């Protein structure tokens, strides 16, 4: 039996008396694509923040590949193999598409290594592959700030992939996209197959259906339900939350 790649064990994130995450647990297997949905304020983005070390839970543990990352510096968590795409695209505006990806693809990210050219060839190969994958090959010398919104989203997905992370967190990758772009994004995630473990946060149900993966539903910082898209749709608790009768 392989052990799960990510195990979130009973974490609580509190802002004063308000608990953004309340004793929340989640297990994601190696190579799995998992979708996390929930109404606004359910704690989905906070979950990502906690996994990458941007917020620190007051209790609980997060195990990545059996290592507890809860107290690690952010850049060490990335080095372990976790990388996240932010909700509003965090591309580096004044850099070209190529440079955005090249920085992400740099193998050793300690600052003095930026002067070394040792691994440049390997890095370039990686960048080329990613450019194809996210369909930005013809835009590689454009400044990232000049891309369309959808292209920025793909570029940031590309950056996350370029880090070589095993676990990638995609926080609303289709926000602001039209139906065709959304479909392309679903294809892109499908194309990753089992090579990466992906945690997707979204509330666009069409997109969630296109992904056709296991879904976890959150509500008010707590676990609500888990299962296939169809299971979740037919779940009475989920229906009541989405219809606003959470009581």
């Amino acid at each position, binding site marked *: 039996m392989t052990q799960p790649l990510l195990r979130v064990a009973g974490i609580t994130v509190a802002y004063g008396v308000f608990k953004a995450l309340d004793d929340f647990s989640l297990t994601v297997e190696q190579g799995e694509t998992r979708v996390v949905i929930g109404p606004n304020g359910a704690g989905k983005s906070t979950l990502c923040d906690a996994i990458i070390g*941007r917020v620190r839970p007051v209790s609980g543990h997060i195990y990545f590949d059996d290592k507890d990352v809860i107290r690690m510096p952010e850049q060490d968590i990335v080095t372990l193999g976790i*990388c996240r795409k932010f909700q509003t695209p965090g591309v580096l505006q004044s850099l070209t598409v190529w440079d955005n990806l090249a920085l992400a693809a740099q193998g050793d990210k300690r600052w003095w290594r930026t002067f070394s050219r040792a691994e440049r060839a390997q890095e370039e190969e990686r960048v080329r592959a990613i450019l194809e994958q996210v369909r930005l090959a013809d835009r590689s010398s454009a400044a990232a700030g000049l891309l369309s919104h959808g292209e920025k989203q793909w570029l940031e997905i590309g950056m996350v992939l370029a880090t070589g992370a095993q676990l990638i967190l995609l926080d609303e990758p289709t926000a602001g996209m039209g139906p065709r772009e959304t479909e392309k994004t679903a294809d892109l995630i499908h194309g990753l197959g089992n090579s990466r473990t992906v945690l997707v946060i979204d509330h666009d149900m069409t997109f969630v259906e296109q992904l056709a993966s296991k879904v976890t539903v959150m509500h008010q910082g707590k676990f609500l339900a888990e299962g296939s898209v169809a299971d979740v749709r037919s779940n009475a608790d989920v229906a009541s939350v989405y219809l606003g009768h959470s009581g």
Partner: protein
Amino acid sequence: MSAGLKTSSTIFAALLTCLAAAAPLALSAYDLNLLARFMSFALLAMGIVLIWGYCGILSLGQGVFFGLGAYAIAMHMKLAALPQGSVPDFMMWSGRESLPWWWAPLESGLVAVIAVFVVPAVFAGLFAFLVFSRRVGGTYFALITQALALAFATLLVSRQGATGGFNGLTNFSTLFGMDINASGRDVQLYLVTLALLVLTYFGLTMLLNSRFGLLLRASRDGENRVRFLGFNPTPLKVAAFAIAGMLAGLSGALFTVHAGNISPAMVGVVPSIEMVIWVAVGGRYSLIGAIAGAIFLNFARDWISSAFPTLWLYFIGALFILTVTLLPSGLAGLVTQNLRKTPAAP
């Protein structure tokens, strides 16, 4: 920056260097001395391009690092002119009979030169580390640096017996065993300054076009994104700030040699803000722009404040407001925009 633009700015820089090397033939001794002082300022201005233009760190305290370099060389020149074991005149007037411990090592010319580079760099680096590792930035950082400039100038004034107080240090006669007032010395010192300016220009150009420079721009654009790609932005910013501090120190030392004096009035809040304005007007993303800004604004200052003594601060204030509202990339931005508009040769 496109390749064409890069070549054209290299050619431009080479032409300017030739022109500047010929300046001693054309300028009066007085104007040559002014030019030498302002070229010293240009070194500091390039440091501001590095931290402000490329890292987005606004420092309103570069006068402090300028002052550290300036006082290091000034103290050495003071000691060099004295017989062994005696103290500078202003110390005697304050009733001091022995040198403060931090003066003594500067008697050696070698120590003084090292101090000009190392003291401002280390101090800037430590300061930046303390602030940036706590993730303080932006306006807060600007305010902290301004407070630092105020504190530094106040400290210099209040320690009359050790620093020369409000009057600072002046009356230098020798530098590294040379008579500083000998004929032809001004041209030599001017050429040394020009050489350092050119070296720094090419050094910084290489640095800014390297992966390191790319990362600096990246963390300016999105520090969080860079952090969550696995880089730690703090050492990058600390290194950049230390380099800018070192250039400011070198700038201060050269200025002191050319001007023949250094005083707290050169290192406090107002001069520190003026330094930022040179770069804002010249162009904070352009090394050549910053050099031009430092030189032209200081010539303008010399001219305006001798013709209309009260107007200078109004003038520079108005110029700053105009630049910020109309030309956020300064004069250099205007030039590069026009270059981009001209169609490429077939």
